[in-house]
């Protein structure tokens, strides 16, 4: 066993010399692998959604329709009303941000409704992400907003109506003022 360990150690030393990033980098500006992505390659993997709705996929859904999808695909992890867990609490917490136990949820904290669509679309259900059709994403988005009292049961959400929703905490954000603690005052202007 000691021998095997020595061999591995020796191999690692060799690798360190041959593959040392500093050495390779000094000799050539690239590593000779991959290529700069073409615009169409980026487009194929770009699923970004902006607050104004750019990037949303065509489709629609209501909370009424979303209840069925939610029960089947979300409830085991998020609870019947989005508040029971065991995973992240999805509803409630409004009015709690100034308390000693703030509860940051979609309803109490998130600034943009489009972010909810984006997150469900890319990451949920947690164990089978990106497996839902656009209409199911709109419907579960509507249902989570409904659980937070933000939309009505039959309000139709689509790529036009979703960005128009004003989230309760939309105006709760300020710009980052750091460095606010620990900075040397004379250098402060460099960062603003």
């Amino acid at each position, binding site marked *: 066993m000691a021998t095997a360990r020595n061999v591995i150690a020796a191999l690692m030393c060799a690798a360190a010399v041959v593959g040392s990033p500093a050495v390779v980098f000094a000799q050539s500006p690239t590593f000779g692998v991959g290529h700069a992505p073409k615009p169409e390659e980026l487009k194929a993997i770009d699923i970004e*959604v902006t607050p104004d709705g750019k990037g949303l996929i065509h489709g629609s859904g209501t909370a009424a329709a979303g209840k069925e999808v939610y029960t089947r695909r979300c409830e085991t992890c998020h609870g019947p009303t989005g508040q029971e867990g065991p995973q992240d609490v999805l509803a409630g917490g409004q009015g709690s941000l100034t308390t000693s136990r703030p509860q940051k949820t979609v309803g109490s904290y998130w600034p943009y409704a489009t972010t909810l669509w984006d997150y469900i679309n890319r990451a949920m259900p947690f164990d089978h992400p990106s497996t839902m059709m656009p209409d199911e994403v709109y419907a579960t988005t509507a249902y989570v907003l409904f659980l937070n009292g933000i939309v009505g049961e039959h309000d139709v959400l689509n790529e036009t109506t979703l960005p128009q929703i004003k989230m309760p905490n939309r105006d709760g954000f300020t710009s980052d003022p750091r460095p606010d603690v620990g900075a*040397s005052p004379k250098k402060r202007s460099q960062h603003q």
Partner: protein
Amino acid sequence: MTREETSKYTDLMPDGTARQFTFDMEPKSVITRPSGGDTLAGAGRYEITGIAWSGRGTIARVEITVDGGATWVPAELQTPVLPRAHTRFQWPWTWDGREAMIASRCTDDTGYTQPPLADLIKVRGVNSQYHNNGIQVWKVAADGKITNGNRA
């Protein structure tokens, strides 16, 4: 915008407003050895070592205290020291066997020096953990056991 950008990389302040979008990690350092969970065998010489980094530039200086911040001495930086990269530091310590509060504090090339945790909490409260770059203190008890000195 994504959930990480809007809900995670935003810092909730005590007044209920939140700072957006707080992506910079300000200068931070931590002693990794000896540190919480370790037990020193007894009085004697120990090398204090740890890492420092800054999301805004290059680490210019790391200082060590073994008396809870009353006095600070410069640590040695291990090269290469690169921008936005972990920078290892070390300093030889002779422990006298009595209770000690040890900590590191770094300064980057913008002139920013890592503040005590209490200073951060005074301004930002306790709900903006993503950017807790406060000084990390380790408490070395007389029996050599090391625990979180920020809680002491």
